[in-house]
């Protein structure tokens, strides 16, 4: 039996309330299933449960619960409700066991070997490849194939934009005042705790823009790539080589993350800001990333973000070029340790092989946590980022 608890949907969240359960007690759930809608200062969030098994003991609706509070219990596959299996001989008690009564029955004594892991979700090879192309987390889909396997058509079905679950209760949007408070708390904590250092680097964008123009000529209007997606992918790829900039600093210790989940800062109408994750951005093709980005921005503004999108970012990218600013010196979102900022792309004089030419330039900036990395490392990162953007065809 495992506990499913109120997730921290960002460092700035203290409480949330379940406004809707999407499962019933006794329902089987699979890792990644969305099981509840939780209302937070960021609006209503689809909360995923990363446990396999049968869910029960659901927490009541509409009660504010602190982060970490019990929301439900999940009985794992193979776990039975009955008493200790008869096959395990009862060991003679070594000591009087008043504590035994307090132990849950399922903490089975004397299990010498780890049980084999539950086999992973059945996903056909074709579905797996298509999901990667489309940038979809296919493990969580419900399979229609033999033995419940997820097939390629399940993936393609899930990728359609009109997949909004039918006629769910209208969601409470976020409360701008509450969100302001939360941002204030997070940013104040950031400036209080994180010794920021800042670097900036002009990046020539001629190659990237030329490549993008050609690439878009071959795409339907709805499938065109925006420069932002090139920037996000380049950041993700460059970060793979700089583990000190991609991870989290909590309780006095830094943990680098193997995956690069890029939090994309999205400004909300009516004020406010949210930076949900584009998962595994370095591993996804540009087209899939573009679709995901469009979907993410839409859901950030309309509601329907998933809990993992709020808890998983390992770095944040903010792109204020559309507002016309030259560059941005960002504030790191704790517990992350770096923020990459982009200003607008504008033509500037640029010296190329001894001659002054007009060059579209972009100022890339890095705000990073000096407890974890130094300026030297940060400078190498910006140089690597610039290199990736000089080879757009490899992104």
């Amino acid at each position, binding site marked *: 039996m495992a506990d499913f608890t109120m997730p921290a949907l960002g460092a700035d969240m203290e409480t949330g309330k379940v406004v809707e359960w999407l499962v019933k007690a006794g329902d089987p759930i699979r890792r990644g299933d969305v099981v509840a809608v939780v209302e937070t200062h960021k609006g209503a969030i689809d909360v995923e449960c990363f446990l396999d098994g049968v869910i029960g003991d659901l927490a009541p609706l509409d009660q504010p619960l602190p982060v970490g509070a019990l929301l439900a219990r999940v009985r794992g596959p193979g776990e039975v409700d009955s008493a200790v299996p008869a096959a395990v001989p009862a060991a003679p008690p070594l000591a009087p066991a008043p504590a035994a009564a307090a132990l849950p029955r399922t903490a089975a004594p004397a299990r010498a070997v780890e049980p084999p892991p539950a086999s992973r979700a059945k996903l*056909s*090879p*074709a*579905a797996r*490849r298509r999901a990667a192309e489309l940038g979809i987390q296919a493990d969580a889909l419900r399979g229609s*194939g*033999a033995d419940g396997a997820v*097939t*390629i*058509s399940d993936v393609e079905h899930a990728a359609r934009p009109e997949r909004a679950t039918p006629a769910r209760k209208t969601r409470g949007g976020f409360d701008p005042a509450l969100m302001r408070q939360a941002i204030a708390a997070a940013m104040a904590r950031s400036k209080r705790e994180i010794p920021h250092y800042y670097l900036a680097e002009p990046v020539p964008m001629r190659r990237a823009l030329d490549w993008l123009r050609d690439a878009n000529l071959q795409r339907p209007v709805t499938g065109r790539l925006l420069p932002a997606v090139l920037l996000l992918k380049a950041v993700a790829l460059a970060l793979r080589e700089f583990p000190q900039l991609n991870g989290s600093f909590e309780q006095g210790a830094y943990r680098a993350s193997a995956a690069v989940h890029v939090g994309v800062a999205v400004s909300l109408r009516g004020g406010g800001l949210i930076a949900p994750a584009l998962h595994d951005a370095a591993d996804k093709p540009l087209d899939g990333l573009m679709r995901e980005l469009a979907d993410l921005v839409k859901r950030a503004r309309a509601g329907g973000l998933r809990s993992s999108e709020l808890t998983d970012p390992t770095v944040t990218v903010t792109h204020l070029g559309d507002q016309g600013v030259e560059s941005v010196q960002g504030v790191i979102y704790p517990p992350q340790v770096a923020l990459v900022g982009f200003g607008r792309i504008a033509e500037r004089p640029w010296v190329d092989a001894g001659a002054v030419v007009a060059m579209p330039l972009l100022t890339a900036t890095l705000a990073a946590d000096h407890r974890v990395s130094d300026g030297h490392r940060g400078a190498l990162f910006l140089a690597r980022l610039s290199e990736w953007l000089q080879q757009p065809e490899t992104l």
Partner: protein
Amino acid sequence: MSAPPLRLSYREACRQAIRDALRADARSFVLGEDVGKYGGCYGVTKGLLEEFGAERIVDAPLAENGFTGLAIGAALAGLRPLLEVMTCNFSLLALDQIMNNAATLPHMSGGQFAVPLVVRMATGGGRQLAAQHSHSLEGWYAHIPGLKVAVPATVEDARFMLAAALADPNPVLIFEHVVLYNAEGQLDPDVSAVDLEHAKLRRPGRDATLVTYGNSLPKCLAAAELLARDGIDAEVIDLRMLRPLDMPAIVESVKRTRRVVIVDEGWKSGSISAEIAARLAEDSLYELDAPIKRVCSREVPVPYAAHMEEAALPSVAGIAEAVRSIVPQRG
């Protein structure tokens, strides 16, 4: 002389092919057990002794190793032997000649010797001939480099594969399924030759690919009709050749249907169906949307009793069931 009838039996198509070959090339002759006076164990060579005489329709003693060696020698010396082996079960007596001489001499002579030998054999079960006359060993021969292995399933291939085999400098084995001899089919008047290279799409479909050959082809086509009633659209590929194997045709189909069932009357273990499944897994895994399935003969010597023989061989219902098991239920 009147034009040959366009509708004919598989047996008649084989006979016409041999007659054509004997007429077209004076170096060609038929050699085999009971091919002359008796007209062939399955009646394929009936009437040819009277038409071509005892020098070109030669009854052989019951000694497969010996007369196969004789045919290889004749091929090396410039003749064009058309060897008939009564059933592939008996060809094991000639396996040494086929493998160690016919398949290897062109290689071992550095290409100086060709062995333009054609061996026809009956294969397969379904006629209550019991375990020593009913097995399907073409998959074994497909293991051997240097041979070509043809498995005609239609009257068109029965009619025209022989000429292609004679024109080929390599030894070619042709496996004629005993149940097909009585099958009738229509010849396309515009077709007068076939290749020994390509598989052929016998029925297009969207939901699953049935890969098969020989007498399993009509079973697969019947299963596809059965499935069509349930709205499942199966594609049927006739391999025609087991060596060389036309993998591009299979892969091309699987890319469309993403599901495959291989139907092979041979036993499953170490079979041609295993080879195809392995190659798909090696090279085309990411095209597949469901596990590869196989329908093969039960791993027993083919029984004599009719109901047991039927249970041992691939069936239309079994093929349909295998397809259903990997096609998602609609609705």
